[in-house]
């Protein structure tokens, strides 16, 4: 029987908040509170890895309560309250990630395009890597 090998490439790296087995899912960039509300009212919330800019907790509060699969931020440290709360929820969280490739947001941030399948390798401390599925 032929085996199908899945290929991944590293697209980012950041501070790991909590040791967790790897998780994988489509990502979504949430830029505004309206984006957050639309996202949590929609489907597949628990399968999705959310990307937001801030290391602040409140911006992604409904996404945390809804139980997203993973969380990536462009700012913040694991000592931030978001780090504390994501640990309480048991949601894998990687903070201050710098992406090497992706699309550019209106604010000039580089993030993976919505729907990109990401894998968070977050089993070790203090660093976690972000992989994207595909060549």
């Amino acid at each position, binding site marked *: 029987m032929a085996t199908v090998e899945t290929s991944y490439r590293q697209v980012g790296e950041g501070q790991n908040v909590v040791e967790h087995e790897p998780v994988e899912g489509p990502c979504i960039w949430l830029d505004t509170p309206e984006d957050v509300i639309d996202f949590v009212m929609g489907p597949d919330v628990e399968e999705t890895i959310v990307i937001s800019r801030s290391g602040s907790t409140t911006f992604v509060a409904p996404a945390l*309560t809804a139980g997203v699969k993973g969380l990536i931020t462009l*700012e*913040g440290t694991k000592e931030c309250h978001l780090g504390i709360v994501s640990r309480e929820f048991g949601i894998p969280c990687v903070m201050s990630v710098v992406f090497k490739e992706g699309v550019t947001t209106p604010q000039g941030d580089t993030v993976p395009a919505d729907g990109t399948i990401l894998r968070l390798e977050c089993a070790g401390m203090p660093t976690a890597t972000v992989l994207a599925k595909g060549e």
Partner: protein
Amino acid sequence: MGAAEEFAKYLDKYLGEVPDGPAGDLEMRRRLPVASIVDTTDESVLRDDLSDDEIDSWTGYMAWNLWELLAKRATEGASGLIPRQEYETISFVQMWATFPRLIRELTKELGAEGVVKLGATPRHEYSTQVNVTRHFGTPMCTLVGRGIAVNLGLDKATNRREDVETMVQFCRRLQHGAWGGGPGFVSGRGFKSDVLEPGIVNQLLADETRLDDPELRTAFKKFNAATELFGFLMHYDCRAGLCDSGPYDVPGGGFMLVRDHQLREPAFPWGKIGDGLPWSVTQAMVYRPTEPIDVRINDISTTFTNPTDYHRHLSGIAVYARDTWDTPMSEVRRLDADELVAITDRVKKATLDLYKDIASKDRDQKIRDGILVYSTILMMPYARTVPGLWESFVENGFYDLHEMAEAAWPTLTGGEAAATLAPVFILGQGFPSVS
């Protein structure tokens, strides 16, 4: 050295020199002209007058303590939902402009010994707003407001010396009540905030339910996280609704943390979103770790551990609800597993409702809401222990924005809040000398 490297140096050590943790406490004590001022005694808390060196020593220690709390969170960034830095900075100026006079009114009603007695509240109550966080936070925020006002040129460091003295002694009296003497700051107590009396600790331990049932473990985990997040959102992105105490030794090994999450605040216009929830819940959490864990709690009652994932060692719990702020401790009730699930479900809905409510407001309204949060939660819990006093404060313009805060508004909401906070919080410029 580049600007980023220079800033990183100040995040790593206070003023690039003093470390965090217990070693930093010792180093600051070594540096202070009057190190004994950060400890409390019966005599030193009852007098009204402090020397310039005593005031400057105490505020010098506070500057390090504040850095210790915040340096590692300095890169958190803007919320995207709530303009927290903007409302925080204006709140602090508002508090500097108004709080010292109100604290003197409170002290006149209670007497200095009455303030000490008030400070003892967290020894015999949990799910109380009169807690270690506020004992630190009310004077700290007021004095940081002074630092911001001085930095903005709205006040002079040598003005209103008596107001600085008032806030320092208010803090020290509360600390003396909480700890009964010795180091007043949690940072001076080895970062242990084990304030509850042994009789209460023993009762919480006796109520422990072991988490042998995976369903109960999962239900509690969700309850803890969801109520923490809602308390945080209810208080506009600040930790005033949360309070940890401990670690308390557990017979046979391990430790217990006691955690309050306030879920409802009728004093907030949006407080009704929490209707149907207890005013506050308290979680006694017993850990029996299989590896060494360093547990530290800071002066805003936040727990940090090394290694970070201490919850995997959670072994047992007891959970309680206090239905109103003045529910007697004898009527605080235990919550069973079904109630944990029901409250979690209610909190999830309330979180989204509150989020939508906040998101619908314009920026200025959010800033005014945030000022209301800080002003209320750092004064009301103390003032309402004297019948009629809080009501008289409100009737006499407590919620009117002071002209000093109005004057600070354009700068602090015009993109300068972060630039103002960095030197105040990180570079020790929040507490200029009184002399």
